[in-house]
């Protein structure tokens, strides 16, 4: 990876993230949460850890929608991943959302990424 640091709205971001080392993810200026097929958290970068006030050790391996970020467990987010998995379809959508980081409502943009080819799915978080 020699290219410049990718931005939140970069094209083909899922592939870039797949190929990034943990250190490279930590250098990003937006939150990265990578999920496996069971929606368990596999990747959790420094930006997200800092914003949520949770260290990666508490989060990695935990199911995202029930044990880490239940605020995303509704039809606006979790359902989208489920639907994409059922249809084996591509998901790349950016929505306005409000997260409850450190119990404060924070307006963010969420980018939801999933594809049939990749094992890792991503929730990306950027403050608005």
């Amino acid at each position, binding site marked *: 990876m020699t290219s410049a640091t990718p931005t939140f709205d970069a094209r083909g971001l899922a592939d870039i993230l797949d190929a990034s080392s943990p250190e490279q993810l930590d250098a990003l200026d937006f939150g990265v949460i990578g999920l496996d097929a069971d929606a368990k958290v596999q990747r959790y970068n420094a930006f997200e850890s800092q914003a949520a006030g949770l260290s990666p050790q*508490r989060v990695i391996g935990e199911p995202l929608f029930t044990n880490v970020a239940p*605020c*995303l467990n*509704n*039809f606006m987010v979790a359902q989208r991943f489920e639907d994409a998995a059922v249809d084996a379809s591509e998901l790349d959508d950016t929505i306005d*959302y409000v997260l*409850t980081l450190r*119990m404060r*409502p924070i307006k963010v943009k969420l980018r939801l990424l999933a594809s049939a080819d990749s094992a890792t799915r991503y929730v990306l978080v950027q403050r608005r």
Partner: protein
Amino acid sequence: MPFDDSVESLRAEHEALMQFLYLAPVGLVQAGIDGEIVMINPISAQLLMPLSPDGCLTNLFTALEGVAPGLRQECARYPQPNGMVFEGQHIHLRAEERRGVPQILSFTLLKLDAARIMAVIQDVTAEVRRERQLRQSDAWLNAILTRISDYALAAIDRAGRLCDWNDSIARVTGFGEHVVGSPYSIFYPPDAMTGEHLLDRLREADANGWSMDEGLRLRADGSQFWCSALIAPLPDREAFGDDPNAPAYCLILRDISDKRAATEKRRQAAFCDHLTSLANRRAFFEAAELELDRAAHTPRALALIVFDADHFKHVNDRYGHPAGDRVLCDLANILRDTFRAVDTVARLGGEEFAVLLPSTGIEQALAGAERLRLAVSTRLVAADGAEIAYTVSAGVAVLDGASAAGGGIDLLIKRADEALYQAKAQGRNRVAHWTPELSHHADTPQRSRNAG
């Protein structure tokens, strides 16, 4: 203890506490008295984000405005310096077909002091379902165990016609032997029963072992009494073979006029809008669910009219909220007088009303909506020396047999809303009905509660 250790242990403790709040399986919100959110946990965001009309969680009352109008006012009106403003109040969301989508929230609001409130929000959809089933069983036991002073017992055939006559029918209802062969709807006021409902109740008795309802019933002399009616399939009806006139069900009518007050009071608390005493959202969606179930089984038309008071915000701004409330109550009274007992007349929120009309086609529904519109346009509501004239716009939509099963109540509401928007766009004080073209206009906005 070295300084670094204590900072580190504080940090760990803080993180553990934070995670405790992240994971708490109930929604917790702290806000200012005006609803401005100070702290909020994830479950609150999970439940509130899909409801929030502005996509923000800046203000708790704004986020809930679409499904629970008036929280702000009721909180402001709360007289004590601190205490429980609402305790486990049920908030009914739009009925969704999808499983697992919350339909009923429980909402608790604690006033901490003049400046701060805390709220607890929970999805209680499954719990309420279970309770509803229990309530039905309770009603059944109640019907059996309560001391019965007098009752009428009649046999009815599979089409709902009375098979025989006996003294008990004469005692309780005053009807004579000539009623044999008439449908059991003769005991109902004419506007309280449709031909389809008559058969629905027989089918429900087949499915559940019994069917019970309570309400005003008719005596032969035209007088009415409060009655509990139970229909149960006869156990040995197969013995009669295919004879369509053979007894298939027993019908028990009990005069429970003396218990009416207590029953009504209980019903009022749970199913009525506090301002207008019309059905509330909960009663509306329960009725809609039942009617759609029935229509799915035996296709028939189901009509929905949504009414919206025109320029209502101006009424509130010009004459004040108490005057606005009077206008709403006036509208509620005309609605009650215009529609049948079998129709569900509900206040869905703010100045938004809905009438669900079972077994009603488009012509009849349009005529009803037009009658109401006309009646309203002649009214003057007295408030503080002023006389307020107002008008309403209406949107009408009908699900016929074929389309009833598919889209559910959401589709019906959406179409009626689109028609209402059309009526508003055409200048208000008018009735419009849904046509497929309306849905093709992608620019039809989600109706804002205060669009007036």
